[in-house]
């Protein structure tokens, strides 16, 4: 956690001495067999998601549950994306606008809380003031609390903000605000640890040159912060995207206001009989952005993971 370095966890590889094997290495074979077995187990849900999402309604017989579709159809995906009001599928909320709303919530939230975290991290690590450690601990505590412990009075505050002159909208506006606020501890922690690992001389030089705090921050600190920004942005993006706790209380209307987790849950639990084809298409659609990020930027994702795992 606090003591873990941010990136490059697996990069400290050292060459191992290969033991000269005279006979066939059964241990090695067993190891790969086990690895492959667990890989299959881990991927079973993925198989189910994909296969079911392409199955037609009539293909839902339990005896064919694990088989490939009799006829591959894109109908579920279409219904999940665009929704349905009646007919064969009944009422299904559309995922496409929910994806747009979630993006509009997550991007500003991630960017703003990253900058807040960067500024806090900078002054806590490198432009210190009396009791900076106490302040850091006070901020950090916010990431260990279960959010249930603040939820009820928070509800009152959010209602007040929605009814005040600010006219904060239920759904993505309220949630973006909450993700920014409750993102402060983790972003501060990651940036502080990063700035502490940067040589002090860099900033001292700027200070000797007579640069003030803001100038040092903008011209010296920000340019070297890119790796941390990537880690923090990804972390904030995925955790806000996947959040369901705040979304379930402050998401507003699942069809028109809420982020995609709430819409997805409403689709999956909407009617008496769950339509698994549509639900699984919707689940895949809702997971796509975070999975793409994971595939493209996995290393940074893990960096955030190592430091942010105990967040509320």
């Amino acid at each position, binding site marked *: 956690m*606090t*003591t873990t370095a941010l990136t490059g*966890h*697996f990069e400290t*590889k050292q060459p191992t*001495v290969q033991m000269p094997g005279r006979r066939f290495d059964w241990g090695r074979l067993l*190891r790969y067999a086990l*690895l492959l077995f*667990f*890989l299959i187990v*881990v*991927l079973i*849900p993925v198989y189910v998601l994909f296969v*079911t999402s392409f199955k037609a309604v009539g293909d839902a017989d*339990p005896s064919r*549950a*694990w088989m490939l579709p009799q006829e591959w159809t894109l109908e579920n995906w279409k219904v999940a994306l665009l929704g349905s009001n009646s007919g064969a599928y009944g009422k299904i909320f559309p995922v496409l606008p929910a994806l747009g709303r979630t993006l509009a919530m997550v991007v500003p939230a991630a960017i703003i809380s990253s900058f*807040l975290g960067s500024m*806090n991290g*900078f002054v806590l690590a490198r*432009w210190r*003031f009396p009791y900076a450690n106490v302040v850091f601990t006070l*901020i950090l*505590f*916010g990431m*260990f*609390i*279960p959010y*249930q*412990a*603040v*939820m*009820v*009075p928070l509800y009152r505050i959010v209602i007040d903000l929605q009814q005040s002159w600010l006219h904060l909208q239920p759904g993505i506006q309220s949630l973006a605000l909450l993700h920014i606020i409750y993102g*402060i*501890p983790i972003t501060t922690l990651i940036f502080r640890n990063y700035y502490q690992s940067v040589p002090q001389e860099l900033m001292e030089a700027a200070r000797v040159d007579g640069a003030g*705090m803001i100038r040092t921050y903008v011209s010296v600190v920000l340019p070297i912060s890119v790796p941390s920004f990537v880690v923090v942005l990804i972390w904030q993006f*995925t955790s806000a995207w*996947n959040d*369901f*706790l705040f979304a*379930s209380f402050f998401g507003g209307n699942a069809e028109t206001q809420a982020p995609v*987790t709430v819409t997805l*849950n409403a689709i*999956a*639990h909407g009617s008496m009989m*769950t339509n698994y084809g549509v639900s*699984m298409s*919707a*689940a*895949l659609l*809702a*997971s796509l952005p975070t999975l793409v*990020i*994971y595939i493209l930027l996995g290393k940074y*994702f*893990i960096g955030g*993971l*190592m430091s942010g795992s*105990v967040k509320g």
Partner: protein
Amino acid sequence: MTRFKRYVPPILLISPSLILMGIFVYYLIFGSVQLSTTSIHTFPQFTGARPHENVGIGNYLDLLGSEDFRHSLKNLLLYTVLFIVGTMFFGFLWAWLLDRRSKAEGIFRSLYLFPMAVSSVAAGVVWRWLLNANQGQRASGLNRLFQTVGLGFLENGWTTSVDFGIAAIAMPAIWQMSGYVMALFLAGFRGIPNELREAARVDGAKEWQIYRHVLFPQLSPVALSALIILGHMSLKVFDLIVSVTDYRVYTTKAPAVDMANYMNGGDYATAAAIGIILLLVVLVLIVPYLIHTAREDRQ
């Protein structure tokens, strides 16, 4: 006053965050504690339209005395034990299997870890299908798979069992988080200098002896961190339960779900009390660990 000039800008820069934390963490926790000691069990009382009174720790006593909430606590305990044992077992096993420079290690690592990038709600959709309680002819999901591969005796009602329904919820949780524990342990293995292994090898130690006497002792801090993190996570289990079963399914209830139900039902005092109970449990878990790491940081 150069000192003054030096310290004012950083304090100004950090004060917005501090004020936000002051309000949204500390003041709200205080607010929860206060709410939890009142008789605010309806919305009109919450808005102040109707009167309420102070009941002290009455709500806590009511909660702990109710069979319903005790069932949630029992569920939470069982879930936590299974979740921690499961993720630690698979996480460690995978890290151990991958430790010895396997070919295609990167692919295994990424695929073992990817369930964590998926939201619990999306995972819940597919696990709801996998944990379908139907058996025999009508079985689908895992029950059907068991039939097909000749493990029919494993068929069961999954989340529908009153005593062990929550154990079924632990399965998707283990599926999601084992890869994370693997990543922690793998980082731990790689942090051990190779010289240690080599030295033991030169001394004639067998491979399992090296693990037993050289590597495992070095991993105990990693294991401790993992335990704390997993315990912290499991206490707040909510998304998975709601998506795999639902808010009001008795068999899979947990405190965080109760809390949502009380809140959505307008019983704000009881909801706040559950929130504070969860906070106290987390504090018991986290504070000793924080003190421990702070001490190590200083050394």
